[in-house]
């Protein structure tokens, strides 16, 4: 089942929470809305669920316009950040709640609940009260309650944010597996970029109510559309540069007082353009002094086990470089002079 938003805007008093957002969620797709708090991602989700009426714009679920359909007739399954389990009902009754409203017979309800609790490993807990469950179990009940009614689209509002780090990792994998096996269209709101990266088919990065970029995790990380996206997803060095020459298969830029030849042509730029070069910390190699593009001094070093971060400095330049597997490659000390080499094929340009 597909979901579409067309030019949706939501204004609260004097704040524009959602600013002219258009989106298409494909059938069976896992789409993540990612952004800092207050970026409008939760409001967008609530507009799809019907808890907020858009100030303008249209929402379609399965090609049917749902602007005037109340939330209880939209058939969306929502998992709330606080889980919102009914505290006065048992786990079974929580899950059966939606089924009863749909008028299923008692035996059908039992059957459907049994199937979903088995799928989610809750079979032993159905007679308990929500308060007797751990956070992870409550989370599963919330999910089961939303899934059992077989909604057209699953809406998840930061469902893992109340779990501890280890459980969160585990639930990411489980949730994604479940979503794929049911191939249910899902919209997932989070502010955690690694959550978005690891789960989503596509990510929508939002800021200040506006869509910044829509793309696969690969595109969002490797080819951020603007400075906000580059900064928000992962860590980044951003360096000024100028395009000096361009041909069909290569480009020459002037960066940090030197010219670099790159084996591709960035789209939408022409000779003479001022650009920003996106250099991920892992896209810079360390080599002996004098052996690379330039030499810099190690100002600070953070050892993380699997990798080591170097904060390098010059008179007017500071760069962050990460090197994996320091056990094998060795580690440099603070104050040491080292050479670096920019990986040309990992460079990405955005407008300055």
């Amino acid at each position, binding site marked *: 089942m597909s979901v579409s938003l067309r030019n949706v805007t939501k204004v609260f008093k004097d704040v524009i929470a959602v600013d002219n957002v258009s989106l298409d969620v494909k059938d069976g797709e896992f789409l993540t809305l990612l952004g800092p708090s207050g970026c409008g991602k939760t409001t967008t989700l609530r507009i799809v669920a019907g808890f907020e009426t858009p100030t303008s714009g249209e929402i379609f679920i399965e090609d049917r316009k749902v602007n005037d359909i109340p939330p*209880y007739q939209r058939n969306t*399954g929502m998992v709330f950040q*606080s889980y*919102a389990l*009914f*505290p006065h009902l048992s786990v079974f009754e929580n899950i059966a*709640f939606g089924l009863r*409203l749909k008028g299923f017979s008692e035996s059908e309800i039992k059957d459907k609940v049994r199937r979903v609790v088995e799928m989610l490993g809750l079979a032993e807990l159905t007679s308990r*009260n929500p308060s007797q469950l751990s956070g992870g179990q409550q989370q599963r009940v919330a999910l089961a309650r939303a899934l059992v009614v077989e909604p057209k689209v699953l809406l998840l509002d930061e469902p893992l944010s109340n779990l501890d780090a280890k459980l969160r990792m585990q639930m990411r994998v489980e949730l994604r597996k479940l979503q794929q096996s049911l191939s249910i269209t899902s919209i997932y709101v989070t502010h955690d970029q690694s959550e978005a990266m690891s789960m989503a088919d596509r990510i929508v990065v939002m800021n200040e109510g506006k869509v910044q970029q829509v793309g696969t995790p690969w595109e969002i990380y490797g080819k951020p559309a603007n400075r906000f996206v580059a900064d928000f997803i992962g860590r980044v060095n951003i360096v000024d540069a100028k395009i000096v020459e361009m041909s069909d298969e290569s480009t020459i830029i002037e960066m940090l007082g030197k010219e670099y030849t790159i084996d591709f042509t960035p789209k939408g730029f022409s000779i003479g353009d001022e650009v920003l070069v996106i250099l991920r910390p892992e896209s810079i190699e360390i080599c002996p002094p004098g052996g690379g593009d330039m030499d810099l001094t190690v100002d600070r070093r953070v050892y993380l086990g699997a990798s080591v971060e170097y904060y390098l400095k010059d008179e007017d330049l500071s760069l962050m470089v990460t090197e994996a597997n320091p056990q094998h490659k060795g580690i440099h000390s603070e104050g040491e002079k080292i050479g670096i080499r920019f990986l040309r094929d990992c460079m990405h340009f955005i407008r300055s």
Partner: protein
Amino acid sequence: MPSMLYKLGGNVVNTEAKEKRDFFFNLAVWLLIGSILLFVVYPLAYIFIEVFFPEGMPTLRLFGEILQRHYFIRGFINSVKVATVVASLSVVIGYLFGYTVTRVDITRRKRKIFDLLATLPILSPPFLLALSAVLLLGYNGLITKGLLGITDFSIYGFKGLVIVETIGLFPIAYLTIKGTLQSIDPSIEDAASSLGATRWYVFRKVTLPLSMTGVANAFLLTFSLSMADFGNPMLLAGSRFPVLSVQAYFQITAQFHIDKGAAVALLLLLPALAIFFIQQKIIHSRSYITVTGKPSSLHPQPHSKLAKGILVTLCIVVLGIVAVFYATVLWGGFTDIWMINHVFTFKHFAYIWEAGREYLFDTLILAGIATPISGIIGIFIAFLIIRTKLRTNKFMEMSTMLNFFLPGTVVGIGYMLAFNRYPLLLSGTAYIIILNFIFRYIPVGIRSGISILLQIDPSIEEAAMNLGANRMQTFRKITMPLISPAFFSGLVYTFERSLTAISAIVFLVSPSWYIFTVFILDELSIGRIENASAAVVILFIIITAFIWLAKFVTRKMGEIPTEIST
């Protein structure tokens, strides 16, 4: 084009449905505002009218007369004097218990008993403590005459009032201060300890300063309750120690000076109003103290043997006195003639059943009618306050709160003045009593409604809607079950307050509709203290039975584990 038409059509239907709902909703709100104006604001305003516009022209004559009469000035001074001493003592004892229960490492059982006994006097019917004081310390008292052989000690007047009102009001101070102590983040005190502060130093420099708003609040509350007290001074103040609430009553019922009674009520009203607004300011200033607003769990900490010993001993002494006062009334009710013939007898209870049964049933009926209405109005206002942004919310909350807070004497005289003439001739009917009960205790419903509605995460209601429940189904299956325990216990409290009400209702009873507490007052005024004791015991048993029943039913309904929703 067809889709355009569809859209227009859809919108029209939607707006109509919305307007229909809004119509009933608005009607309910306006009816509510109208009745608050009529049954809360109008009677209070009438006191001012009676005093300052007795013949339709503005005059200060009556008020001037009152102020010139030595007797009324003394009444004012006495009331303030008693209230000041009672409030100070209550705060000290309340703090003692609050601190011992929340901070001292006493056993669980001891904590439970302290808490239960220290809140017991809240439940007491009027006159109970004053009766005990007379039975124990009066001219013919068990302790004064019986044990010590003293006959020239007088419990009547300042001393007696201070004793019984302190016993009756320290529980209020205790609950207020306990709430504040519980809302202090325990880690703040732990931090002070870890920096090297002793227990005593932590208390002086951290705990006490952080709980000062609770202390101030407790002082104001007990002060105004002492000012408003009618039952105890009725028995203990006498004519040589006049206090305002009793003076107003005598002016009206004995001397039929309604205008002077109103002027005395005004003397009671003005300080109460001042305190009310100061208190509102304190509550709303919400300084750094109640950081979470949510009482955290108890935070007992190790204390030295000496400190613990002193605190626990003091608590036990106070509770011992409370216990003695309660036991004395019970004994008095079962005694033939106090201090003369201590034979166990049921005859006073038999008399109450004979002579007072009807009044008791009247009271139960009237309170039973008023309580659910009051509760529903309270919950509705709570709903408006939490889930809407109507401009009238503040007015509804403040005016009903004021009616709850003001001395019953003032409210009763207001009702008597406002509703004894056309077009609202309600005097002598059951309606005036019911209306008084309803509008007096609305804030109880508002408070329990607000606290429970705040605890229900709106997303719980949204989750129900998301699963296909419409507004009505959501309210019935989710909101109602979640709020009903609190709603129900609010009802029981309102009912209990109605059964024990005296200060306002004493102005509103009539031969056709009488009230049990006024019947007790009648027995007292002709000196039948054994009968009065028996009646007080009966009332106490009824109240306690209802409270236990309510606890039982609420448990049956299922205690809602609200933590989960936050």
